[in-house]
Structures are given as structure tokens and as C-alpha cells.
């Protein structure tokens, strides 16, 4: 799908090549993450694919076609592009920003409008609310979403993403990553993704290309990279605690079936039954849901002593944090550490309760895999 052959880039006025004799192949529908310390040439490599930088030598093929012989404008219109600073146009509305490529392609207005609304909805921004706003009225996370929507609107088969989730806080970043992976499952783009964060690389990548000083050190699946790093540099990059890093690779839904935990209780369950449930539970707590199985809260063993009442609702504490089943085990760990609890409730997209996983479950995974 994307194939780089012996690509070298030497910037004018520099003697050392930014990228040296690099060959890389990205299969259709794969996310290939370029990772490495700053100045390793990962961004330069990515930007040669849409010819923001022209290679000094070597060749680049996209679907077998020589990208360096194509009209650069035509080439770029079919490659989604998201950069670190997002680069939304501050003088245009969100709608106009997302419509950039359709307008360049001269799509009919109605088609553009429909597709823009569809994309905004896909990235979780209600078009009715956000279409007419300007980028300055959006939060960092929302801007990143608009950036992704803008890159995908014309349904390009290929996307280039340079630290697209870089400028937001860790929790928002984890959410954006999960959302994007969910979208990717449906759309299967071929993606070249640049990051300096090895955790992000392990989480997002189907394959990871580790670069150092303009050279490709290792190109492998996340699993192979963790189990058999090519040299000390890669080993240092992935870190000593490799078994912990595997938590990035496993999604909660993959282990949720195996953990068999007490059923949730409903709000009006008599407190006697709740007590019994808590005694049986290995987390000394019971999750409370409503009639639609929506997560409502939790009753811990201490709540029983502190309060009085007849039914579950009288004792219930609200749960501040939950995770979705497509989050990684590492996301679950972060939430547990943040809330200071040994467990976290898992919900689906509609906030319906799916199960609970505990610190113990995570330890078991690390033990088995390691």
C-alpha cells in the first residue's frame, strides 16, 4: 500500500541526512507507528509521503504508483493529514474547516454538508452545536477531534498523523485514542502515525517502526518489539518494565469474559440481600445499576456501617470514573490508581454496566504474559 524504498533526505545546508536509506512497507488497513527520540527523522519520513518534503533520493510507491511522479496536489487530496498543532484555520468555522478538502475537490454543496455533519458526528461533536463555532471556542480535545474529522472527510484511503493527540491531557488523550481505534476498526485506513511516546505506539500500532538518527532500527509488531527488541536502543526505548507495557496491548473486553464476578444489584434491592452480596464479593463492594442496566454507583462494606436505610439506593456512593470495554488494561490501571480503588467498573458506549475488573486481574495478565 505504502512502500518506501531506500529513501534519503538531506536538507539544504546540512551534511548529515535527516533520513538515511530508509525502506519501509505499510500494509493496507494497518497503522504503522513511527517512533523515536526527537530529531530521529520520523516526522520527515512521514512528510515525504505527501511530499511536503521531497526525498533527495529513493522512491515512494502508493498502491504501486510512483508518488514522486504524481501531481503533488492530487496526491495530497487523497491523503488525510493531521499535524501536531492541528493547524485549524482560526478565521473559518468548524464546518468550513472540515469542508476544506471537499471544497478543493469541488464537491456539490449538499454532498459536502452531509459528509461534514457525518464526520463531526463520527468524532463525537454534534454538528448542530459545533458547525458554526470558531476553533477558538473549542477545547484542546475538541480541536483534535475536528482535526481528525477534517482529515477523514473525503474518505482518503491513506492518513498521515503527526502526534495528533499530543497537545491534550493524558485522560483526554486515552479517550481520543480509544475513539480513534474504534473508528479505525470500521474504516480500515492505511495510517502512518508519528509519535515520540512508546506507550502510544504500542497501543495504536499494528506495526511499529523504531527510528534513530535517520535510520530504521526495527520494524515489527508491538508484541515482537516487546519480546525481541533488535538491539539495546530498542530495548531501552521500550523500557525495562516490558510486561507492564503489555497492558497497552490488551483491551478490557478481552479479559472481561474470563473474570467472573458478582452480578450488579438494582437500586431498590433490600439491604439484607446487598449485605450478602458484599460478603460474597471479592472486591467487598457491589455495583448498583438501574432498570436499564445503566451504571449508578457502588456500595462498599464501609458504606453499610456509615448510613442507614432500607434499600440499596440509601447506601449508594456515586462512581466518578469508569472505563469502556475497548479501553486498554493500562487505561483501567490509570483509573484505579487515580481513584485509589482496587477495581474499576466497565461500561459500554451507552454507560451500561458490563463488568468489573480488579488490580488482581491485571496482575494475573502480567504474570501469564511475562
Amino acid at each position, binding site marked *: 500500500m505504502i512502500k518506501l524504498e531506500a529513501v534519503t533526505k538531506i536538507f539544504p545546508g546540512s551534511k548529515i541526512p535527516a533520513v538515511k536509506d530508509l525502506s519501509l512497507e505499510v500494509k493496507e488497513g494497518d497503522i504503522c507507528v513511527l517512533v523515536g527520540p526527537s530529531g530521529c527523522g520520523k516526522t520527515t519520513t512521514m512528510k515525504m509521503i505527501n511530499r511536503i518534503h521531497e526525498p533527495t533520493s529513493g522512491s515512494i510507491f502508493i498502491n504501486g504508483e510512483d508518488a514522486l511522479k504524481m501531481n503533488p496536489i492530487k496526491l*495530497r487530496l*487523497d491523503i488525510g493529514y493531521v*499535524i*501536531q*498543532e*492541528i*493547524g*485549524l484555520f482560526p478565521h473559518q468555522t468548524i464546518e468550513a474547516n472540515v469542508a476544506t478538502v471537499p471544497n478543493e475537490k469541488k464537491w456539490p454543496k449538499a454532498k459536502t454538508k452531509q459528509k461534514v455533519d457525518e464526520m463531526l458526528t463520527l468524532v463525537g461533536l454534534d454538528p448542530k452545536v459545533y458547525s458554526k463555532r*470558531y*476553533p477558538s471556542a473549542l477545547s484542546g480535545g475538541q480541536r483534535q477531534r475536528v482535526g481528525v474529522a477534517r482529515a477523514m472527510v473525503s474518505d482518503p484511503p491513506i492518513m498521515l498523523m503527526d502526534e495528533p493527540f499530543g497537545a491534550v491531557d493524558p485522560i483526554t488523550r486515552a479517550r481520543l485514542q480509544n475513539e480513534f481505534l474504534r473508528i479505525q476498526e470500521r474504516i480500515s485506513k492505511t495510517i502512518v502515525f508519528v509519535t515520540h511516546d512508546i506507550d502510544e505506539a504500542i497501543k495504536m500500532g499494528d506495526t511499529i517502526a523504531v527510528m534513530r538518527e535517520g535510520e530504521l532500527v526495527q520494524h515489527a509488531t508491538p508484541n515482537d518489539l516487546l519480546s525481541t527488541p533488535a538491539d539495546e536502543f530498542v530495548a531501552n526505548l521500550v523500557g525495562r518494565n516490558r510486561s507492564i507495557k503489555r497492558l497497552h496491548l490488551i483491551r478490557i473486553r478481552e479479559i472481561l469474559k474470563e473474570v467472573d464476578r458478582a452480578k450488579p444489584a438494582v437500586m431498590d434491592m433490600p439491604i439484607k440481600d446487598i449485605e450478602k452480596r458484599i460478603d460474597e464479593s471479592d472486591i467487598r463492594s457491589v455495583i448498583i445499576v438501574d432498570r436499564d442496566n445503566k451504571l449508578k454507583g457502588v456500595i462498599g462494606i464501609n458504606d453499610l456501617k456509615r448510613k442507614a436505610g432500607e434499600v440499596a439506593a440509601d447506601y449508594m456512593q456515586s462512581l466518578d470514573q469508569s472505563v469502556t470495554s475497548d479501553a486498554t488494561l493500562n487505561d483501567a490501571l490509570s483509573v484505579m490508581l487515580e481513584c485509589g480503588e482496587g477495581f474499576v467498573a466497565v461500561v459500554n458506549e451507552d454507560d451500561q454496566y458490563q463488568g468489573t475488573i480488579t488490580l488482581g486481574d491485571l496482575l494475573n495478565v502480567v504474570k501469564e504474559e511475562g
Partner: protein
Amino acid sequence: MLTKVITYLNRRGDLVWELVLEHLWLVIVSISIAVVISVILGVFISYYSGPAAIVLTICQVLMTIPSMAMLAFMVPFFGIGFTTGVMALILYSLLPIVRNTYTGIKEISPAIVESAVGMGMTEWHVLTKIKIPLARPVIMAGIRTATVMIVGIGAIAAYVGAGGLGELIFQGISRSNEPMIIVGALGVSIIALAFDFILSWGERRLMAASKTGEATK
């Protein structure tokens, strides 16, 4: 003195009004031509850093030439009259507009331009849809500075027969007619203030319309 001025205005109101219109016409013609030349020049040098330094230096030097000298220097080429005045005023308005167009474009966040190019916008669209709209508030500020400035210099253009309120001032001086000088000078000031007011109002409107508050960070 005030009564003398009022009497003069009563007596020669028609002439004063005619000169005000002449003055406005002189400024508007000059600034319109200057805007076209300067914006094109400013955009051009934003692409080529070599010529940029040269062009900006030349514009700077032009501005330091005393207006009397500049007008006198032009007479052999363009003769006496309106054209000479317009020519001089254009040269004076170049610097603020060229410089502001240049800096306005240069100050746009590189990320914005790069994402525009990277998504496949043509160079022309990047310029007309992204760069110029984003630089517009800065360009407008340059146009305002230039306009206010040449309203004043325009008074001196009467010296080479370009017309305008300068005629009242020059004639007033040679005839020792103080009310005439005052009417001319006040007229020039009022026109300058009016332009300043209208253009800064326009700038604010543009700012509000384009919401160029904070660039994407």
C-alpha cells in the same frame, strides 16, 4: 479670531467645500492605487526572503525623504498638477502597507499554512483563502496608518498644483490671511481624524467577523 474664521467660512464656504472634496479625492485615488501595489509587493516578498530586505529598505528610504524635496523632484518627470501629487502620495504610503502585508503573512502560524498545503490546497487558494484573510487585520492597520499620513502630506501637494486644502494654507501664508490658514489646517486635521475613525471602526468590524482571537495552539 473665531469670528474671523466663521466669517471667512460664510463668505468662501463653496470654495472650502470644493477643496475638501479635492483633498479627499487626492487621498482616495492615491491610497487605492497604493493598496493594490503594496499588497501585491508585500505578498511577493513574503515568498522571497532575498528581495524582502531590499524592498523594505527602499520603502523605508522613500519615507525619510522630506515631502517638499520629493514633490520638487517629481515635477521634472510628471509636471505640475494632480498626477505629481498622487505619485508622491503613493510612494509615501508604500512602506506601512508593504511592511504590514509582509509581517501579517509572515506571522501566520506555520502549522496553519502547512496543514493547508498538506491537505492539497493549491498555492493560490492557500494565499487567497488562508494567508490574506488571516493577515487582513494587520494589512488594514497598515492602510490606516498610510491614509492618515498622506492626508497630512496631501496638504503639501498643493505646492505642485495638486489641489486640496493645502491651497488655502499656502495662499493664506502668502497673503498673511490667518483665517484662511486656520480653515485649511483644521480641515486637514478633521479629514485625518475622520479617516482614522472610519478605518479603525472597519478594522474592528473585520476582527469581530473573522474571530482571529487565538490561533490554534
